[in-house]
Every structure is written in C-alpha cells, then in structure tokens.
C-alpha cells in the first residue's frame, strides 16, 4: 500500500517534531527563568524548516509515502506556517517568559503548527484525519494553558466543539470510504462517480464541516469569539492563525483532487459557505466592545474571503496562487492585529483611547494591520483580495465578488471603531498610566505590520513563486 518515500523530503515536518520533542526534554531539565532556550530552539527548528522548504520548492512536484503531496501548495503552506510560527513565538514572549509552563506552551505551539502543515499536504483521508487531530489536540491544551479567568471555559468549549467536529469528520471519512473503497485522493476521484452520489455528498459535507471547524468558518465558527476572548491574546492569535492555514489548503486540495463536481456541486456549496462566513462574521463583529471578540469575528469573515478561492479551485489557474497569497497575507496581518492587543494589554475598544499619543509607532502598526484586514493597498491583504476577487470573477462567481466587496465596506465600520479611539485624547491620566505597551508583543506588532506592507509591495515575487512551480 505504501509507496516508497524519501524521509529527507519531510525535513520541515521532522524539524518541527524534533524541535518539539527536544524542547520538551530540555524544558524538563532547565530552570524556569532559562526556559527561553526552548523558544530559541523552536525558532531554530522553524528556520531549518524554512531553509529546507526553500530547497524543496525547487524540485518537481512529488508524492511521498503515497499520501503526502509535495507541490507548490504544500511548500507554500509550510512556508506560511513557519513564518507565522516565528511571529507567534516572538509574540508570546511577554506572556510566557519565566512562566511555569513556558516549555509546554512552546511545544504545544510547535505541534499545532506541525498538524496544520500536515493538513496542507495530505492527499489521503486517513492522513487528513490524523493531521486534523494533530492540529486540534495541542491547541485545545494551549487554550487552557493560562488557567486564569475564562481560559478553562474557553478551552472546554473549544474542546467540545472540536470533539464533535472530529467525530463528524471521522464519520464523513468513513462514508467517503464506503462509497469509493479508497482513501487516497486519486482513487477517490476515480471511484466516487460510480457510487451513490447522495452518500458521497453527505460524507463530503461531514468532512468539510470538520475542516470548517479548523478554519473557523460558518457553520462551525461558534467557538471562535469565545476562544479568542477567553484566552490571552497570544493564544488567541495562535488559534485563529495557524490551523486556518492548513485547513483551507486541505479543503482546496480535497475538493479539487478527490471530489469530481459531477458528484457534488461543491463549488456552489463552498461559495455559499464563503458568503455566509464573511457576512455572519461581519455582522456579528459590529456590536462588539471587546477587541478580541471583534478580532475573532473578523477572522470568521476573513475565512469567508479565503473560501472564495477554494470555491473556484481547479476552475481557473488563478485560484491557487490567489488562495495561497491571501493565506500568507492573512496570517501576517492577523498576527499583527492580535499582537497590538497583546501589547496594550487592553481588552476593550475604549481602553485603547489615546494610544496614538502614548505610542505613535504602535498606533501606526495597528492602523496598518486593521486597514490591512480591510484590504487597503498597499498592504498584502489588498493584493490577496485583488487576486481572490479576480479568481472568483474568472471562475464564474462574480456575484460572490460583489458580495465580498459589499462585505468589505461593512467591515470598515468595526475596524474603524477600533481605530477611532486610538487617535482620541486620553480621558485622564489615571486611565492612560495603566497602558504600558509591552516589549515582545509590541515589536511583533510592528514587525508583522511592516511585513504586511512589504508583502504587499513585493507581492509580485511571492505570487510568482506560488504560481509558477506546478
């Protein structure tokens, strides 16, 4: 069953795994205040992974172990996950440094990243499910990491939603296997057309529900605001960034490679999910007064835009590079926004009053991140939106592009609700004295915001890299 494979083609994955295992052992023997070594090790592992990805990206596409695809999408997923991991490692600096469970945080983070990466490359339902679990379980634990305030509640909610999603996914995998007698995507595509289409549709919808949970998309988005508001901002940034990357790529790959549209009209299904995600996320974000809940709903709407790219996957050559680029842009910009929340330590919109006066550079980073999420040029998300919109129009979903544009304007309302108080004068000194901005998170916010602009301006290079090697 298993095709021969070369383990060296999995260096990025192996580096993460080794980094996690070594970190766990090392952390057990390291005094608490020197546990930053574990974080350093994780960063080195990510660096090695990035270098290996860069090398691997120059090779022709391949399938290893019969189940894992090495193509542009996988390389891009690896690169995006690893860059996001580096940013998140920097972001968590203030939260975890010297903490009792610093090592656990870093190890769980790495394992979650590994799961997300595997999701992106999986070309077999069983591997997909394994990756789903690997991308989920460490993050449940991470959500409950802080043990303070509402974090245990958020973790429980996340876990319960995830357990349900896991069961549904497993059922979906079983149904698809029952219809086709295969788990590999190629075999699935060939066999599905012969079996009963209704069963296949149910199975597909079940698997998609699981992936939608990972991506935080409608209809499995209920956990997003609670988790992002219930945990420290650093954790919220992890949970809303990392799993999405793998889940969205996995969705696109599964649908394009394994499900013939004649069996299930999945482009329309995904288009509807995209429309619902962006609209529901935006409408729910309007009334929020907590920045983290607001950002949580904003990530739901962002997944809607991402799903536009999934809906036209395979219909137009523009879909894949657009989707991957949007993912990269989203990851960087989303981390920047959460990093600002982490840096100010304020959870409400009103609490950000006077930020521009206290820390103008951070305020500019926030504006760049929020307008970036809106899609204002020259930030990366603009280019992402441009390419995704183009792909949607090209793939015959012009109505979706129009809806997305309307949604974008609607999203301005709540992003500006956060920008406005930042530039207002502080209410009184007592109020602002509490607001000290923190080092690691602040630097991450500024770095990620700068990266978002850089990615937008130099997008040509990245887009070519995502589009040319196929």
């Amino acid at each position, binding site marked *: 069953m298993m095709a021969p494979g070369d383990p060296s083609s999995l260096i990025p994955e192996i580096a993460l795994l080794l980094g996690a295992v070594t970190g766990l052992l090392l952390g057990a023997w390291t005094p608490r205040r020197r546990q930053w070594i574990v974080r350093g090790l994780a960063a080195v592992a990510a660096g090695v992974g990035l270098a290996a990805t860069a090398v691997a990206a120059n090779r022709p596409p391949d399938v290893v172990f019969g189940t894992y695809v090495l193509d542009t999408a996988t390389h891009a997923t690896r690169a995006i996950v690893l860059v996001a991991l580096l940013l998140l490692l920097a972001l968590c600096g203030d939260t975890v440094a010297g903490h009792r469970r610093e090592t656990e945080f870093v190890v769980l983070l790495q394992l979650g990243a590994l799961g997300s990466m595997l999701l992106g490359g999986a070309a077999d339902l069983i591997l997909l499910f394994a990756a789903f679990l690997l991308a989920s379980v460490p993050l449940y634990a991470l959500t409950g990491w802080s043990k303070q305030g509402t974090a245990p509640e958020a973790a429980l909610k996340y876990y319960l939603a995830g357990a349900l999603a896991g069961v549904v996914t497993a059922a979906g995998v079983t149904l698809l296997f029952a219809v086709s007698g295969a788990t590999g995507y190629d075999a699935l595509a060939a066999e599905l057309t012969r079996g009963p289409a209704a069963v296949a549709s149910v199975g597909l919808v079940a698997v998609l529900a699981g992936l939608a949970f990972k991506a935080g998309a409608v209809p499995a988005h209920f956990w997003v605001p609670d988790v992002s508001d219930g945990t420290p901002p650093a954790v919220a940034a992890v949970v809303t960034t990392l799993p999405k990357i793998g889940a969205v790529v996995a969705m696109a790959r599964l649908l394009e490679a394994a499900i013939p549209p004649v069996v299930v009209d999945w482009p329309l299904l995904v288009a509807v999910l995209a429309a619902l995600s962006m609209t529901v996320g935006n409408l729910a974000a309007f009334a929020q007064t907590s920045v983290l809940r607001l950002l949580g709903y904003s990530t739901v709407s962002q997944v809607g835009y991402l799903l536009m790219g999934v809906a036209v996957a395979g219909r137009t050559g523009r879909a894949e590079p657009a989707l991957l680029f949007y993912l990269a842009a989203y990851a960087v910009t989303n981390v920047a926004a959460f990093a600002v929340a982490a840096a100010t330590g304020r959870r409400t919109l009103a609490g950000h009053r006077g930020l521009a006066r206290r820390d103008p550079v951070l305020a500019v980073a926030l504006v760049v991140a929020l307008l970036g999420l809106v899609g204002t040029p020259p930030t990366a998300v603009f280019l992402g939106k441009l390419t995704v*919109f*183009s792909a949607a*129009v090209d793939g015959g979903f012009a109505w979706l592009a129009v809806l997305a*544009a309307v949604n974008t*304007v609607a999203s301005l*309302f709540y992003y*500006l609700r956060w920008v406005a108080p930042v*530039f207002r004068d502080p209410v009184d000194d007592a109020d602002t004295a509490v607001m000290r901005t923190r080092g690691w998170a602040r630097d991450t916010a500024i770095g990620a915001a700068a990266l978002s602009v850089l990615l937008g301006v130099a997008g040509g290079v990245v887009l*070519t890299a995502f589009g040319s090697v196929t």
Partner: protein
Amino acid sequence: MLSVIVFLPVVVAAAITVLPARLGTRCFAGAWVATGLAQLVLVAVVWSALPGTGYGAVERVEWIPSAGISYHLGVDGLSLPLLALVAVVFTAAAMYTLRGVDRPKSYVLLFLALQAVSAGLFVALDLILFFLFFDLSIVFMYFVIAGWGTGAPARRAALTFFLYTFLGSLALLLGFILLALAADRPSFDIPTLAQQNPLGGGGTYAALTLLAIGIGLAVKTPVFPFHTWLPPAHTEAPAAGSAILAGILLKMGTYGFVRIAMPLLPATWRQFAMVVVVVGVVSVIWGALVALAQTDLKRMIAYTSINHMGYVLLGLGAAGMVAGSGEQARQLATAGATYQMVSHGLITAALFLLAGSLHERGHTYAIDAYGGLATRTPRFAGLFAVAAFASLGLPGFSGFIAEFQIFTGALGAAPVATVIAVTGVLLTAAVFLLVMGRMLAGPVRVPDGPGTPRPFADLSVSELLAIVPLLAGATVLGLAPRVVLDVIEPAARVLNDFLAR
C-alpha cells in the same frame, strides 16, 4: 522624473518624522512649502519636455507580472495640468498653514502623504496603481477630517466620508478586475487596454463594468445622488483640508472618467452617454439650488462644487453623444471638461481658504453673522469678490472659458440638457451675488464672542500668499487660456479618437 515628483513629499515626510514635535508650525509648514515649490519646478520641467502626442516622462517597471500589474507612470495633456494643479493647490495650502495649526507635525505629515498620493494618481498608467493612490487618498483624508475637525460631528463626517468613498472605491476595483479579465492576457495597464479595446463590442459585460467604474468615480466626484457625504466632510474638515478635498480629491473622480471610463469602454460610454449627461445636468441644477438655500458659507461652497462637477460630466457625456461628424464639438466638450477641472480646483481652493480665514476670526460659517466686511476687511472682501466672480463664470476668469467650451460642445448633441445646464450658471451667479451682498455690503456686523469684542483683522501675509496665487492662476487661465489648452487639446483629440472607435 515622475517618481521623483510623486515621492518627493514622502521623502520629506520621512525626514520630518525624526524631528521633535516641539519645533512648531513654521518649521514643519516651511518644509512643506519648500516641498511644494520644488515639486512645482519639477512639474515645469516635465511640462517643457512634453511630447506632442502620446505619454511623456514614461516610467515602467514590472511589479506583479503574474497578475498583469506594473508600476507605470506617464503624463499627457489630460494629466499634466492636473499634476500642476496638485503642486499649486498643495503649496497654497502649505502657505496657509504657516499661520499656525494644532499638532503641526502630524498635520504636515498627513498632508505630505496626501500630496504624494494625489500626484501619483494623476500620473498612474496602471489601474491598480491608480486604485492604490485613490484608496490611500481616502485614508489620509479621513485622518485629516477626524483629527483636525471639531469634536463628534467631525468624526461622524469623517466616517461617512470614508464609508461612502470606500464603497465607491470597491465598486471601482470590481470594475477594474472585470476590465483586466476581459483583455487577451489579463492586464491592468491603461495604455495596453486602450489599445486592445477588449470591451469595444459593448454588451452586458461591458455595461456592468462601466456601471461599477461609473459608480466608483461618481461617488468620488461627487455627482447627484452620491453627493451626500460631501457637505458634512467639507464643513467639518480644516480649511486646508477642504481646499484639498474640493480642489484635488474631487478631480480624481472626473479624471478617472477621461483616463479610464471613456478610452477603455468607448462603445459603452457612447451607449450610456445620455445617462451621463442627465446625471451631470441634475447635479448642476441640484447643486446650485441647494447652494442657494444654505445659510452656512462652507456648505454653500461645497454645493457649488457639486454644481461645477456637473458641468464636467455634461461635457464628457456630450462628447460620447456627438456622432462621428461632430469632431469639433466633441473636441470642445472634452477639452472644456478638462479645463473645468483645473479651473474649479484653483477657484474652489481659494474659496475654502477664504472661508477658513473667516472662521478663524469669527468662529462661525453662518453667512448672516457677517456684514459690511468690505469696509472692515478690504483685502478679504476684494479677494472674496474675485473668487466669487471667478466661480460664477464671469468672462476673464478660467471658469468662463471652461463652461463656454462645454456648452458650445454639448449644444449640438444635447440641446435641451445644455439649455437647462446654462440656467445653472444663472443660479450660481445668484448664489454668489446674494452672499456677497449680505456679507460684504451694508453695516458692519461681525460675530461677537462672549465678553469683549475681538479685533477682526484683515487677511495676514501667509493667507494672502496662499490665496492670491490661486486667484491669479484662475485669472491668467481666463485671459490666456491657450497656455493650458495647447496641452489639453492634443490629448483630448487622442481621447476622442479612442472614443470614436
């Protein structure tokens, strides 16, 4: 060369960020004035080297080749006058700022950024580059209105402005995507698209594209019924902000019509030219009538802007209606519309700066609060009268040349519409004459603050340095229009050739 013109303000802005904020207005505004003057010199150099046909000073670098996007700059007779207008109006705003402003450092930084994106928009030859500058102008202007307007109404006005114009910009983006996808090989390059004319056949796809682009530009212009964001934005913005908003940002909409909508969608433009003419005429009359009803000077000027932008649309729409035989008429209408953009930019900027000076002294824009200013502040009164006469289109000023050309060009194609539009001139004349009568003549009346009456001083030197050149420009363009028309006309001819395909 064009890159230098566009990014010079950015470089200066970057240099300013390292200076401490306590240096004061003079330092920052001084740097801004110097930037504007330098830009003006550079524009003059480009002007002197403009080729007879085609684009001058072209720069092109591949930017995002896989999506058909390039960094493509260039000027022709349609964009060069507007580029010069950017330099002139921003320099005037800088002069005006010399007299002092709250938080000068961030103020000047924002305006320098606005100056860069405004200059960039008029020289962009790539749709995405155009969109980039278009969108950034909204962002920076939002912060100007929200940051230097007064209190909660300013924030509301800024939000309204942002939402409306951003909605417009997204419609524009969709239109651009539709245009780019229609080409043989997806491309956002304006000259390439004009050459290929992918939507020359018309049809539903082309109509939807023009609808998207048209809505986007109409909001920015603004024309009736998309104008509701404009009066509050103008009223709440600081004087220099209003001057830039009306003088430059509104032109981004009308410029988009001549640069993008007309040459890239010629058949559809001809098909729907009547709609454009009607929208233009409605804006003319509506703007003038509502202006007549205003008691607030700044709102009144804002509504006359809607009126004046209506003439531009009338001219451009008429150019699409004139059949192949009406070469001359089409030429007149297009050139007149472009001329009107420049003329209105100068005059309305001067009017808004004058209104700002008045507010500085009286702390209100209420027209009724002032009277007999001709005796108390003769310099203000004189300049206000000149600006008012220029704005209502008196012969000798640039507005007359522009409107005369538009009417002459449009008369053959849309006689009824043109006749209706001409009454708009009468209405604006009434508006300005009434206001002048109430504010400048009669017994002296200035608003009283609580307590002792304040001295009501005449215009200061920096205010004069800002306003006089603008009005002098409007006069020169009125007396010697060939200076600019010689540049506009060849480009208008090229545009009309595209339109006639």
